[in-house]
């Protein structure tokens, strides 16, 4: 909402003002007309798993055993099995889940040391901050002989990301990883034409010119929260939807998933829907307006913890009982759930998966075949598992699961010693 206003206000201010004042030299590209990566349907073993550890921290490992089969099998199985973690019926996987193929990357093989360029999201808040920390830590830990060039772009300046990526391409990296914040088709296709393998990390793009995409299936994330909400309210009642930033693929896919679920239940009435930029202030403003407008709100679906905490504050202020919420496992959201006692479901999107994007890029440069889409496994839990996930000795702004150890969390002043 604030960014919308900003855009409108910018136009006005400009009108008012007018009225009143009447890189480094890398290797040459191997092949500037590189053919598209050949695709086969051979089994792949590049999976990413995220498993809660006994001590409550999370051990995020790459290449874990997510089950035998292709990535298509794995993603189809995720649609079937993840709802069952919440006691829900399996989902039918969408067509695209059956279309994941293995990509031959032999043409990109390059011995180390390597230069990896990463057009990353600026660490404007805790999610991208952790995302950036994770990839930097992975680089130091596993690929210290190689070079990582980070080029951040803020959400509010997403329209400049294309220029940022072009700047990275000038430096002739061996591989380019992009976290798309806007339409990045152009630079992806130009990089491919230069023979530079492109990987998408968190987000998507309307082109086939990239090698692989490492991400969570966000349609599934949206569906999981929505189906849980539907069951929680007995498949009938009034709900409100608070989405992320308008036009950002991650947010739109989640919203699409939620709408697909809610459209199955004619007795569920969507009272209102608003984009809230994953932002607490925007979430609070939108929910405060809905609360004055509607006397009966039986549940709130959100696709992010930021707007959820703002919306919960609006319920508290209005003196209204907090209904079931769908959100993400941010420690501050879990604190509110613990303090206020409302039912919730949390569907994760751990920022630490950026490290797996780096691993995938290295696999491409090794010439190892990779799947065209690598689905990140995430935590999915509801009120029953609150005690296992909530960390009362840690700050609100901690995304769970965290790749940091307890000692690191204390060192970084994110947690008090337990």
């Amino acid at each position: 909402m604030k960014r919308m206003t900003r855009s409108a206000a910018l136009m006005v201010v400009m009108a008012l003002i007018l009225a009143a004042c009447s890189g480094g030299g890398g290797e040459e590209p191997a092949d500037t007309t590189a053919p598209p990566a050949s695709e086969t349907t051979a089994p792949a073993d590049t999976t990413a798993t995220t498993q809660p550890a006994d001590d409550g921290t999370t051990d995020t490992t790459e290449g874990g055993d997510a089950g035998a089969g292709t990535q298509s099998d794995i993603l189809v199985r995720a649609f079937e099995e993840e709802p069952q973690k919440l006691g829900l019926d399996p989902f039918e996987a969408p067509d695209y889940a059956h279309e994941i193929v293995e990509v031959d990357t032999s043409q990109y093989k390059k011995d180390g040391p390597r230069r990896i360029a990463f057009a990353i999201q600026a660490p404007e808040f805790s999610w991208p901050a952790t995302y950036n920390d994770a990839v930097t830590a992975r680089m130091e830990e596993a690929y210290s002989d190689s070079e990582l060039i980070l080029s951040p772009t803020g959400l509010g300046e997403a329209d400049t990301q294309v220029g940022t990526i072009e700047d990275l391409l000038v430096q002739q990296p061996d591989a380019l990883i992009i976290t798309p914040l806007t339409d990045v088709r152009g630079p992806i296709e130009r990089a491919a034409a230069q023979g530079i393998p492109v990987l998408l990390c968190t987000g998507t793009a309307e082109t086939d010119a990239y090698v692989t995409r490492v991400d969570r299936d966000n349609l599934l994330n949206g569906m999981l929260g929505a189906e849980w909400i539907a069951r929680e309210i007995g498949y009938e009642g009034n709900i409100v939807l608070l989405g992320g930033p308008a036009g950002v693929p991650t947010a739109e896919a989640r919203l699409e998933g939620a709408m697909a679920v809610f459209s199955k239940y004619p007795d569920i009435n969507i009272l209102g829907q608003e984009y809230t930029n994953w932002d607490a202030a925007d979430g609070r403003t939108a929910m405060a307006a809905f609360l004055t407008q509607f006397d009966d709100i039986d549940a709130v679906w959100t696709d992010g913890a930021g707007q959820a905490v703002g919306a919960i504050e609006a319920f508290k202020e209005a003196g209204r009982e907090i209904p079931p919420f769908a959100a993400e496992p941010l420690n501050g959201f879990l604190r509110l759930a613990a303090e206020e006692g409302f039912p919730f479901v949390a569907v994760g999107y751990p920022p630490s998966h950026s490290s797996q994007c780096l691993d995938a890029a290295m696999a491409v440069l090794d010439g190892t075949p990779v799947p065209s889409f690598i689905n990140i496994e995430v935590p999915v839990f509801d009120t029953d598992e609150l005690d296992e996930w909530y960390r009362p000795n840690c700050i609100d702004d901690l995304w769970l699961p965290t790749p940091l150890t307890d000692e690191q969390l204390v060192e970084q002043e994110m947690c008090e010693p337990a």
Partner: protein
Amino acid sequence: MNIRERLRQIGPYTILLVVLPVAAIVEPGFYRSANLQNVARDAAFLAIVALGQLVVIIGRGLDLSVGGVITTASLLMVYFAGTPSGSFGLGLASVIGVTLAIGLLNGLMVAFRRVPAILATLGTLFLVEGVSLWLTGGRSRGRVPEALVAVGTGRVGPIPVPVLVAAGVAVLVAVILHRTTYGRALFATGLNPEASALSGIPTRSVIASTYLVAALLAALAGLMLSGLVGFYDRTLGVGYDLDSIAAVVLGGASFLGGRGSVVGTLAAVLGLSSLENLLLLQGVGESYQLIGKGVVLFAAVLFTTLVRRRPSSPAGRKAMVENPPERKHETV
């Protein structure tokens, strides 16, 4: 008073005059007391920031750093007062100290180094955001103190506390602008800095002081806003820079300085908040919300600029010479 002058005085109320009747027709829920409280409270934060911006614009300036100040005030309070070992006094002292430093930097750059205000305050904004990011690494370390939550969400009877604070600030700013030597010096400096300097007004100090006022009021809004949201939010101040400028100019101020109205600014702020709330309640799609806001804002701007413009016909110019518009500083 001729018709043009009367229309000019209506200008700040244009959005309200459009939104209020439309709301009565299409969204009666707009007039629910709880919703009106929300509108008034949301407007209160922008009003406080806009009143600071008004002072700057009267002095021929512009402050793009107010959004950064809002976020920084929230950050510092959470950082120093939001942990179990924190101190509210230390948090408040840090907010005041940093805010004064930001205002002083802006003032010195614009008034004494003659850096264009738009560049100086934009530079300060980048500086403040960068330091905040460096300090936090993108993460907040604490929680918003309960005292701020009480202020941000509290009510005195049916009136939200931020509305009372904004009203107090408005009265204070109006008194300073119209009942003090400083206020008269500011208007004179904005109207004609050279003549004001020749007449003995310390114009540089006057201009520099406006940035201190804007920074302090933005910090006040930031503290209350973080109390309302109840959660540290690094985008808390996003949009307040341009929104506040739009409100001030729609409220009757001129980028050429020397003109501005507290009441007009408040009316424009209420209009903008009402418009935003109405579009939200209507549940129209994102694209239509943007189009709606753009159309209403442009209509208000066109109306305001048309009634201010010099007549183009000889007869009109003659009429203006014979019956010049009042060049009053303020219409409180």
